[in-house]
C-alpha cells in the first residue's frame, strides 16, 4: 500500500516534516522556512546542571513537537497527536491512518535508526519522519534529512518509535486534522503570530539561560572553561557546542540562515522593509556563529588554546547575542 505522497528533502527534520505534511493542502506554499518561522522554531537555551554525552546541554531550537503544533495552530488547522502505552496499539493506529490515505508524522530516536551512519547515532529522541505506506514488512519512510525516500522493517520502525531515554517518543504520531485548503490570508496571519512568539522566546523569557540571555551566558562561561575544566575537557565542550549548532538539520549557522530565509519569504506575503533588514541581521548572526565554530575547531583540534583564544570565542557569542537581540526587537515592534 502506498499513499500518493511526494518526498521532499529539507534542512531540518521537524520543519521538513511539517512542510511535507502540509504540501498538498497548501499547494506547496508552506515551504520549510515558512514552517520553521510560523512554528517559531528559532531558539537558544543553555540547560544548567544537566550533562548530555558528558558535555553541556545546549539547544538552538525549540522543543520537539513544537514546530508542527505551532504551525498548524497558527494556520487554524486542527492537530491530531497521539502517544501510546503499547507497541501493538501504536502500530494499529499507524496502519489505520495509512489505510485511510493519510501520511503520518512520527517522532523517533536516532540511536537504532538503521539507515543513519553509525557516527551520527546518539540517543537523540527528537527526530521526525513521515510514514507514507507499507509494502510487505517494509514501511515506506520519508526522512526529510535524506535525499530520497527509504524504508524500515516493522521491527526497526517499532524500535525507533519506542526509543528510550530523555524525550522518549512513546510512539508519537501526528498529522493535520483536516484537508481544507490553506489561504494566503491564513498564511499572513500565521506569519505575524509566529514572529511575535519567536521574539518573545528569544528576548522576553526571564532568567539567564534562554534566548539571547542564554547566548550571553554561554559566552561568559566559555571564557572560564579553560581554567575550570582544563584544555582537553574545554575542547570537548566546545566540540559539543559546534555539533549542536551545525549538526544534521540546522541548515547551517544554528538555524539562523533558515530564519533569515523565512523573513525574506514573509516579506513576499507582508511587504515590509523591516523584515528584510532583520533577515540581513540573521544572515550576519549565522555567519558569526560559523566564525565562532571555526575558532572552536581551532581549540578542539589543538591548533590554538590560550586563554586569549577562549576570550575571543566567548566574545563572538556576546556579539551574536547583541545582534539577535536588536533583530528581534525590530521584529517585535513592527506595526502590522
Amino acid at each position: 500500500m502506498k499513499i500518493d505522497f511526494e518526498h521532499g528533502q529539507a534542512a531540518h527534520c521537524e520543519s521538513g516534516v511539517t512542510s511535507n505534511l502540509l504540501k498538498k493542502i497548501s499547494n506547496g506554499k508552506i515551504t520549510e522556512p515558512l514552517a520553521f518561522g510560523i512554528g517559531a522554531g528559532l531558539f537558544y537555551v543553555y540547560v544548567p546542571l544537566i550533562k548530555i554525552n558528558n558535555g553541556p546541554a545546549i539547544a538552538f531550537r525549540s522543543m520537539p513537537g513544537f514546530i508542527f503544533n505551532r504551525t498548524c495552530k497558527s494556520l487554524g488547522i486542527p492537530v491530531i497527536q497521539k502517544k501510546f502505552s503499547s507497541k501493538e496499539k501504536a502500530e494499529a493506529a499507524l496502519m489505520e491512518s495509512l489505510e485511510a490515505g493519510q501520511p503520518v508524522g512520527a517522532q523517533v530516536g536516532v540511536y537504532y535508526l538503521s539507515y543513519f551512519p553509525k557516527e551520527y547515532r546518539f540517543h537523540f529522541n527528537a527526530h521526525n519522519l513521515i510514514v507514507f505506506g507499507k509494502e510487505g514488512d517494509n514501511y515506506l519512510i520519508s526522512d526529510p534529512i535524506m535525499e530520497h525516500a527509504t524504508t524500515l522493517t516493522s521491527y526497526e520502525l517499532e524500535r525507533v518509535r519506542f526509543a528510550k531515554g530523555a524525550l522518549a517518543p512513546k510512539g508519537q504520531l501526528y498529522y493535520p486534522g483536516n484537508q481544507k485548503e490553506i489561504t494566503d490570508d491564513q498564511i499572513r496571519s500565521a506569519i505575524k503570530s509566529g514572529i511575535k512568539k519567536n521574539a518573545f522566546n528569544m528576548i522576553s523569557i526571564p532568567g539567564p539561560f534562554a534566548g539571547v540571555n542564554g547566548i550571553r551566558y554561554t559566552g561568559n562561561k566559555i571564557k572560564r572553561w579553560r581554567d575550570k575544566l582544563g584544555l582537553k575537557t574545554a575542547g570537548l565542550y566546545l566540540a559539543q557546542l559546534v555539533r549542536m549548532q551545525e549538526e544534521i538539520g540546522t541548515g547551517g549557522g544554528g538555524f539562523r540562515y533558515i530564519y533569515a530565509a523565512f523573513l525574506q519569504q514573509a516579506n513576499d506575503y507582508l511587504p515590509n522593509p523591516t523584515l528584510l533588514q532583520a533577515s540581513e541581521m540573521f544572515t550576519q548572526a549565522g555567519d558569526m556563529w560559523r566564525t565562532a565554530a571555526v575558532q572552536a575547531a581551532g581549540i578542539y583540534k589543538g591548533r590554538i588554546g590560550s586563554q586569549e583564544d577562549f576570550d575571543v570565542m566567548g566574545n563572538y557569542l556576546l556579539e551574536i547575542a547583541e545582534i539577535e537581540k536588536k533583530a528581534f526587537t525590530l521584529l517585535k515592534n513592527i506595526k502590522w
Partner: protein
Amino acid sequence: MKKENVPQDLSSLGKITKEVCYATDSDGKYVTQLSDGWDVKITALDVAWQEIDGRIAGAKQKVLNNEASPLLFFMELRLMDLSILADYTGFWKWQIKRHLKPDVFNKLSEKDLKKYAEAFNVKVDELKSMDVHED
C-alpha cells in the same frame, strides 16, 4: 553565507546523503544548496567519538580486571547511562548498579541476561564474552 561558500568537505553522512543548507544567491535571495559536509563539524564529531572510544577501552579493561561486569563495557559501547538502560530493560537503576558487579552478574538468570542482550542489540553469549562483531 553565500551559495558558493557552502562547504563541500565529504563527511560520513555525505557518503549517504547530502545535506540541505540555506544560503544566498548573487541577488542576496535565499536558496537551498546541497552540502557534502563541513570539516569543522566532521572534526567536532571525531573529537566526540575519540572520547567515547577511550571510555569504551577503559571499561573493557575494568571488565578484564574483574572490577566490573560486561554491562559496563556495553553501556559505554551503546552510549547508555543508568536511566536509559533502566528504561530499555525495565530494571531499576539500583538493580543495574548491582549487576555491574562481576559476582552478581555471573549469577543472573538467562531471562535477565536476555533483557540486557536485547537492549544492547547483541546475543547473550556476546554479552558475556564482550565479543561483538559489527560492521
